[in-house]
């Protein structure tokens, strides 16, 4: 191929996408010829991980600029794809449709929150931080406010939030690797970790960028193909997003007909941990306005404070490109998020509608227990039925399922070939890996650049800096995997906590750094540490039986944390001296897109 790599990107990824579709077709043919389900699963995961590792190796670099910000030459649309993969984690891919399936409207606040946050990113922060020319988010805080304490505080908040998040992603990678490769979870976690490190270790941000684009392509095909296929197979509509109104209404009818029968506590004890029944309406409004809005708001402000997302916009060629790139990111995210409720609808209807051949409610227990897919997923601990009322037929309240089953099991329930399940496993793996890569890199870069280079050894040579960065990458990865292997908390819970931690400590110090010239070092440090401590205190308080206030729950504690952060930052800033002339000039320069970046090209 002629010309440089950047100019050839559409061609390179076009060929890659074609090759991947070719691979799916080959697998489909192999399945017809008798390839086993297990072999297909292994082939999908192994093939895709091999490709990512190859990209990671081809992107290896010895330059600081390429390692930290991919040389600042990633075109808008491709950066959009990379950000979408960076953003959509194992939780989005595997757990989101399940959450909507079980909790309906109240849960969909996450859809609104995880997209609306990008408006804040585009308008309040991304273009200005791009103009600043920093390598990491603490780099901005450290230079804008000045002083090692401010820089270090930002590293602390970043590490707390990102580390909470990354254990969940390594957990998800391990779960999928253990199912697809059929190895115990404790080992699968490390297989997942090694795959993750292969993408990021040699090429840093450059390697992660080009693997994330590849991972986005895999995950979006893996999510959309089954949704469209199932919808067409069920006769629900050829374009599900515009055509499922009847199905949504039908679920409402069935809910009325069956009613939500409350199970006795003693009966529920027999249900395996992690499985749930349908207890909430599908499309009716089932949450108070504040419950919905507070969750959405927490996720939106968290989005704008998460460093692994923000640092993706440091890689664009210009300020203008950074703004547009946020739009593209959200467009690519929208493709998956708007499909999740459709998948939840199709999945639910196919299970509960007695008029459909796949429906199991109303069948006898003997009939359901004889179904192949029921046996498989019951064995995998993701489905469970129990005849509580002893009448011999399955009622809505007697059927239990795990949240992951909506994405993982629906293709099989709808009677799609196994090749689709293999594809879904590869998609889930791509989603979890890409997010884990972004997060581990964010933490390792912050510690290597901001703590090691800027605070400990400012004279270090590039080779030494990059060596430290890589060693940290491995250490943080293994620490994350070790905690993930302990399986302390669920995937989704810890993801939401990460958003709350990030917004508690970073939202206002970042935003006010650009939009309020008077904000100074003392205020920022008070805001970061005070916010983080207040948020963490609230979480611990509610977790240990505290009643909470204003309807703020353990999922939205960031609202309290960030409010404390804002108040502290304003009061302390106003009580201390205003920033010096040089800093005020710096803020003025950040607000203008043209001209040199604040920090030099390689600082």
């Amino acid at each position, binding site marked *: 191929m002629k010309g440089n790599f950047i100019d050839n990107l559409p061609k390179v990824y076009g060929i890659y996408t074609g090759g991947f579709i070719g691979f799916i077709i080959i697998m489909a043919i192999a399945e017809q010829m008798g390839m086993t389900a297990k072999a297909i699963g292994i082939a999908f995961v192994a093939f895709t991980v091999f490709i990512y590792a190859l990209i990671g190796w081809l992107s290896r670099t010895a330059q600081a600029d390429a390692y930290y910000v991919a040389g600042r030459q990633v075109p808008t649309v491709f950066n959009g794809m990379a950000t979408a993969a960076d953003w959509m984690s194992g939780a989005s891919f595997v757990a989101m449709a399940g959450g909507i399936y079980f909790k309906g409207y109240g849960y969909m606040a996450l859809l609104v929150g995880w997209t609306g946050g990008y408006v804040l990113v*585009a308008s309040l922060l991304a273009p200005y931080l791009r103009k600043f020319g920093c390598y990491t988010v603490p780099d901005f805080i450290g230079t804008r406010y000045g002083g090692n304490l401010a820089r270090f505080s930002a590293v602390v908040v970043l590490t707390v939030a990102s580390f909470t998040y990354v254990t969940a992603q390594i957990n998800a990678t391990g779960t999928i690797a253990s199912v697809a490769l059929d190895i115990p979870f404790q080992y699968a976690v490390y297989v997942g970790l090694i795959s993750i490190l292969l993408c990021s270790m040699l090429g840093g941000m450059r390697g992660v960028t080009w693997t994330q684009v590849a991972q986005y392509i895999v995950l979006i095909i893996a999510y959309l193909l089954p949704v469209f296929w199932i919808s067409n197979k069920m006769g629900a509509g050829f374009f599900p997003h515009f055509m499922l109104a009847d199905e949504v209404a039908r679920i409402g009818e069935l809910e009325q007909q069956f009613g939500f029968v409350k199970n006795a506590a003693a009966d529920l004890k027999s249900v395996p941990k992690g499985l749930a029944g349908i207890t909430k309406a599908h499309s009716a409004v089932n949450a108070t306005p504040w419950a919905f809005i507070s969750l959405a708001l927490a996720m939106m402000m968290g989005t704008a404070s998460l460093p692994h997302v923000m640092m993706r916009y440091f890689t664009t060629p210009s300020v203008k490109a950074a703004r547009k790139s946020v739009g593209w990111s959200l467009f690519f995210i929208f493709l998956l998020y708007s499909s999740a409720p459709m998948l939840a609808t199709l999945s639910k209807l196919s299970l509960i509608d007695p008029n459909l051949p796949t429906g199991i409610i109303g069948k006898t227990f003997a009939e359901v227990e004889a179904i192949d897919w029921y046996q498989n997923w019951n064995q995998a601990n993701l489905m469970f039925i129990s005849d509580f009322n002893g009448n011999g037929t399955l009622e809505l309240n007697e059927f239990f399922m795990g949240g992951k089953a909506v994405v993982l099991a629906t293709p099989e329930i709808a009677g799609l070939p196994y090749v689709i399940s293999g594809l879904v496993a590869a998609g889930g793996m791509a989603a979890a890996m890409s997010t884990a890569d972004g997060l581990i890199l964010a933490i390792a870069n912050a510690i290597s650049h901001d703590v090691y280079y800027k605070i400990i050894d400012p004279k270090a040579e590039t080779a030494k800096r990059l060596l430290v960065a890589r060693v940290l990458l491995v250490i943080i990865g293994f620490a994350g995997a070790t905690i993930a292997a302990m399986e302390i908390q669920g995937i989704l819970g810890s993801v939401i906590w990460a958003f709350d931690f990030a917004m508690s400590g970073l939202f206002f110090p970042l935003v006010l750094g650009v939009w309020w010239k008077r904000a100074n070092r003392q205020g920022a440090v008070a805001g970061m540490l005070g916010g983080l401590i207040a948020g963490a205190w609230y979480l611990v308080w509610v977790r240990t039986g505290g009643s909470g206030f204003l309807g703020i729950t353990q999922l939205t504690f960031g609202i309290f944390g960030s409010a404390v952060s804002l108040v502290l930052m304003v009061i302390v800033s106003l009580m201390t001296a205003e920033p010096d002339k040089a800093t005020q000039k710096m803020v003025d320069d950040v607000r203008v897109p043209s001209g040199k970046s604040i920090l030099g090209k390689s600082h």
Partner: protein
Amino acid sequence: MSNQQKHWEKTRGLLFITLAIWFVFSIGIFLFGAEMNEVTGPFGYPWTYWFTCQGSLGAFVILIFWFANRQEKIDEEFGFSEREDE
């Protein structure tokens, strides 16, 4: 008022408009979620349900591109747009 101050004033104005639209789609409409869901909306879905599935999400995508274009116009107007384009 210097050129730069005027530019920032306009930029801030655009921010407020953008945040106001953002507020409507992320918070405003969900204050009336229960009432609005009684009405049939686009493609036959109930209104609130449609907003949470597609409407608000799509509005955010359009809003960001609209914002980016407006901001570019403002930057051009005051001669602050970057020279080295992609």
